């Protein structure tokens, strides 16, 4: 069976005044029909740029510099702008990270949701409006008939985020790219949205790519997860295995820096140091300046992903050290 979405060796460059920056380098993953794929990683690691590249929505200074994006076999990297416009919405859609920058401030929210169904599903004015109201209800906006006529600034942060989700789902796409779709939602509404998305996967066979910093949210929705750092994937595999037993020191660091309800307020342990600047990426393993397990080999080591178990890959040459550290202190006790 071929995957619904197949990303192969994708690279993106951003042109700046001081040269081209490698924002995404050789990213590969697959999402099967009805499955959800999670993408996590530090702020600035290239998650949003990757999603925008899939849909051909990169800012003007950025461009795909290599690789393939296949939607049911069709290569989107070489597709025409015209074809991409047909795809966006009814075939593959996106929930953007910052709703205010993606919504039209002078258009009523209901009309913004109804726009897609009118253009792509051939619905008339009232049919599209009815669909918009139904979607607003599904994403938990109270009193949708009346809130239909509001403008984005009249909505709360979380309500705008739900409008974005309604727009993304409005034309029944095969793939939905979700960039931090629930960060502005309280946990009860988040729960409702996650249920809605998992039901879509199970019932309509929709595939999801899900970017979030909230690792437990990934555990709720996704089957597979990849960890990104400085534009590259460092580890990839089934969620249940990666969160229980990471095989990359960076993943381990991420899991350990999350606040939880057990620790008493003794200060959190962020990963030491800060993410590298894209202008001066370290050679060898990009994580080596911050890695507690680094050896001399790491600054020259190859960074290819290695298969370490069924469906599991890691870029760390000393993944046994990350495993060993967990013998003393498991991630999940």
């Amino acid at each position, binding site marked *: 069976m071929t995957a619904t979405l197949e990303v192969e060796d994708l690279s993106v460059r951003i042109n700046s005044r001081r040269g081209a920056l490698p924002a995404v380098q050789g990213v590969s993953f697959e999402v099967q029909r009805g499955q959800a794929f999670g993408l*996590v*990683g*530090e*702020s*600035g*690691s290239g998650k*949003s740029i990757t999603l925008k590249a899939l849909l051909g929505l990169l800012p003007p200074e950025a461009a795909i510099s290599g690789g393939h994006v296949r939607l049911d076999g069709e290569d989107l990297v070489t597709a025409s702008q015209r074809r991409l416009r047909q795809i966006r919405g009814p075939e593959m859609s996106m929930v953007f990270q*910052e709703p*205010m*920058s993606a919504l039209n401030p002078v258009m009523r929210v209901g009309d913004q949701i109804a726009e897609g169904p009118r253009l792509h599903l051939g619905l008339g004015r009232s049919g599209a409006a009815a669909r918009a109201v139904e979607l607003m209800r599904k994403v*938990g906006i*109270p*009193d949708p008939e*009346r*809130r239909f*006529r509001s403008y984005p600034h*009249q909505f*709360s*942060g*979380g*309500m705008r985020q739900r409008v974005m989700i309604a727009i993304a789902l409005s034309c029944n796409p095969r793939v939905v790219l979700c*960039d*931090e779709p629930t*960060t*502005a*939602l*309280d*946990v*009860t*509404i*988040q*729960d*409702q949205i*996650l*249920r809605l998305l*998992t039901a879509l996967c199970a019932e309509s066979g929709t595939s999801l790519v899900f970017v979030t*910093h*909230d*690792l*437990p949210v990934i*555990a*709720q*929705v996704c089957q597979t997860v990849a960890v990104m750092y400085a534009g590259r994937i460092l580890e990839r595999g089934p969620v249940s295995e990666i*969160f*229980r037993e990471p095989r990359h020191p960076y993943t381990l660091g*991420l*899991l350990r*820096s*999350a*606040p*939880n*309800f057990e*620790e008493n*307020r003794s200060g*959190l*342990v*962020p*990963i030491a140091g*800060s993410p590298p600047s894209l202008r001066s990426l370290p050679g060898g393993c990009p994580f080596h300046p911050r890695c507690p397990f680094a050896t001399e080999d790491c600054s020259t080591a190859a960074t290819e992903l290695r298969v370490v178990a069924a469906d599991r890959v890691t870029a760390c040459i000393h993944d046994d050290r990350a495993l060993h550290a967990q013998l003393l202190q498991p991630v*999940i006790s």
Partner: protein
Amino acid sequence: MTDRAAATEPILTARAVSVSFDTGGTLADRFRRRERVLRAVDGVDLDLRRGEALALVGESGSGKSTFAKAAAGLIPPSGGEFAFEGRTLGARRDRSDTRRIQMVFQDPYSSLNPRMTVGQMLRELLKFHSVVPADQVAAEAARLIVAVGLTEDALHAYPRQFSGGQRQRVAIARALALRPDVLIADEPVSALDVSVQATILNLLDELRARMNLTLLFIAHNLAVVHHLCDRVAVMYLGRIVEVAPTGELFTSPRHPYTRGLLDAIPRLTDTRTGMAPALEGDPPSPLALPSGCRFRTRCPMAAPVCARVDPQLRTSPDARLPGQSFEHAVACHFAFGERPDEERPSPVEQRNAEPAPVERPSRR
């Protein structure tokens, strides 16, 4: 840790603060005389104590950002008032009050000037408010940007050149630049990965210890709230329904909404989607509030009295209840173990001589 939790002196006080928006409505709405005014915040009393971190959590759309903006002086309350160090704040705040109460917005994209580099923006602000001597302005800007975990490179970039989380840190640096006494932070870490989030939380903790910074912290991530805050206030539809010291709120929540909220927290190890949802039903429209208790349409404990009487925030009549202190206030008729007795009027009702119209809760 200092014993900051023991701080009691209020620095910023909200007295019966309400904020309403005129939603205009359609011609048909006007014709039918339907409610057009949306009461986003409806009579909130809250003390922010010097040096504490108070969390404001609750339903999306319950009025947290609106309350925060009113507290920061960005929208005038339509009822009630704020007091700062005991002084009532007028509708227009002077430069010093503005500097001393700073806010980080939920949506950093729309709150940063797109035509200024981050360095220009910070330097201008530092000069305008004379935070440091003129010859130290550039160094201070660099110090701030490093403190929020970015590199000095960031000073030369425009807001659009950042990732979402980087932009949020720029917004935090801007608010901290003015060395405020009170920082109102609306979802300041929700776009940050856990590692950077830890850096920012540690920075806020340090500022509280070193500069006695007071924090009103709005967040949806309850693990973060649990970690950072001394007290938690829970909002539902424009009202505060529960306030308590953090430990107490998480171990013995007393409002049914708070319990639903805590039950819905996702965990790393199990999936919730197989289980029943923590809260049934949809939140009612803020334009057509239910009579009596606003949570009754979704409350598993609702009784007829809940439709008649609007419960007010009250502390326990008996502080000997387990896990209960006088610091813990709840707006529910049955918060402290009172039986939901169908026949007997509630204690509140007994005090209110005037009988209110009876209405059945529209619960299914």
